[in-house]
């Protein structure tokens, strides 16, 4: 009888040990699994917008390569350059030994993605195109980069910003007409499918060029005059004093309400990219309209 008891205990202990070992094993496995297999340490960004977002997620130190157009924030300019958006240098990318390459459907050719993956490099493709999709896109990107928490914070900030401006809208009675001039000569305006257009819609305004056939159409000055915009917004031009360059077009538009009543404002380029800065862009736009 004593003998039976001790055997049982031994057997019991063995089972418990095995059970505990298994449990331990499972725990470590799941722990390893929940730490994302991609918590990349060497990230290359193939678009200025994604660069800004990555910096916004606090991943600036992990970025090892950017395009030559990535100029925001200033630290981005000091990173190694791998070429342009439509023609990045595959060689430069590979030399930097990235463990993640972030690109976008809006500006990077699909072939680049295919080539990188055929070379066994990990890629992440950003697909969000509108301001409404921005928070969700940030959350997804953050998760893929292993910083889901920070992604959540940033996304929430943006959502709050959006709501703030949405609730400030004027009543539906007065739908002011806005045109956002991207470049005065030749006249290029912001059409549908741009962050600018989203911002205008968000503020409850009407984008005069909202039904144009392309995103940044070369617009007819005549048509602009006929559409009588109430507000004229002129975006910052690269490398030139936009006020001087705009003199010509403002003279031609002298008869539209916006120019007659002095509702012409010069804003920065915050709305040119789908990045966290769009909130400031919306704010500028809102200040302009009031």
């Amino acid at each position: 009888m004593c003998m039976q008891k001790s055997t049982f205990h031994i057997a019991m202990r063995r089972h418990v040990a095995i059970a505990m070992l298994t449990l331990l094993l499972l725990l470590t496995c799941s722990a390893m699994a929940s730490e994302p297999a991609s918590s990349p340490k060497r990230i290359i960004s193939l678009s200025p917008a994604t660069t800004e977002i990555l910096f916004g997620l606090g991943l600036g130190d992990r970025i090892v390569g950017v395009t030559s157009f990535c100029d925001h924030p200033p630290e981005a300019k000091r990173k190694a350059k791998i070429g342009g958006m439509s023609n990045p240098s595959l060689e430069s990318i590979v030399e930097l030994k990235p463990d993640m390459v972030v690109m976008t459907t809006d500006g990077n050719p699909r072939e680049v993605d295919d080539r990188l993956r055929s070379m066994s490099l990990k890629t992440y493709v950003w697909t969000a195109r509108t301001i409404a999709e921005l928070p969700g896109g940030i959350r997804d990107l953050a998760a893929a980069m292993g910083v889901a928490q920070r992604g959540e914070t940033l996304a929430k900030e943006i959502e709050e910003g959006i709501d703030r401006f949405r609730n400030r809208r004027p009543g539906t009675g007065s739908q002011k007409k806005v045109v956002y001039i991207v470049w005065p000569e030749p006249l290029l305006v912001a059409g549908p499918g741009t962050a600018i257009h989203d911002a205008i819609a968000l503020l409850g305004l009407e984008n005069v060029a909202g039904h144009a056939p392309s995103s940044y159409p070369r617009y007819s000055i005549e048509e602009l005059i006929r559409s009588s915009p109430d507000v004229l917004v002129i975006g910052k031009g690269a490398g030139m004093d936009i006020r001087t360059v705009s003199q010509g077009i403002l003279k031609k538009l002298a008869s539209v309400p916006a120019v007659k009543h002095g509702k012409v404002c010069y804003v920065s380029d915050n709305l040119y990219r789908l990045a966290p800065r769009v909130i400031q862009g919306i704010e500028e736009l809102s200040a302009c309209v009031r």
Partner: protein
Amino acid sequence: MRPIRLVIFSAVVLGILLLALFAGPRMVNPFSLTAMDREILYSIRMPRVVVAMLMGMALGASGAILQGVLRNPLADPYILGISSGASLCAALGMLSGFYFFGNMSVPLTAFIGAVLVSALVGAFGWKRGGLWPERLLLAGIGLNFLFSAVLMLLMSVSSDEGLRRAVLWMFGDLSMADWSLIPSAAVFIVTGMGLVLSRSRALNAMILGDEFAHSLGFAVQRERLILFGAMALMTSASVSLGGTIGFIGLLMPHIVRFLLGADSRLLVPASAVAGGAFLCFADLVGRSLMPPMELPSGTVTAVFGAPYFLYLLRRKDVLSI
């Protein structure tokens, strides 16, 4: 040449001018103009039509002159590299943000580029005291390749925005036609035309060959130099007004020759007028096809011009140069 043809020709030209002023993208009724209509007509449409006429005239006449001077039916002012040289200079100006002369900055850089290339072509085409047609043609083609290559290089390293603007300019932009640009360009174009018209007989003789031209009492090299210079001046002014718009110089002389005969005294001015009307028409189409978007006039002239150019190449009597 039957007079009736001249009458029809003039009527068509006039019709196109009126259409360009009053039609598309929206009709403006000349008999009941609102204040907005008047404004659009005066500050937008009229300068546009005037610029189109001036540019088209310069290019049409230049084409007729070159086809005679070079004795080549496929000659056109741009074959000599003037367009790529002007585009290069204009692109450099645009991409570097040069704006010293306000809205005349880009036109000025284009003009300088065009004149420089013309001078270069002339220099390479010069030998033993004269300009030689074969040398001019070859020099022009060579320089054209060179400047196009440099331009492509420039475009491949520039930002997307700068690139887009340069390309849009090269395709021809009449949308910013402004009364301020017109006088200086008009002076060059009218002077050039006057110079050429006074030398039409020499041009006719030169088409027969240098020997006949000499035999008929012309100082061949001097006439060739004057005609080339006038052509370069007009083309440069045209490029400065609204970018590089192709095919007009190539096409118009052939059409006019077919309708009204080969005599340069009529061919040159008629090609000029036809060129002006054609560009007005192309501009009208460009701004009326997909409103409110505007298609560059250069693409419209190419869409009409390129098929005809290919058709020309197929005709045996044209190829036997």
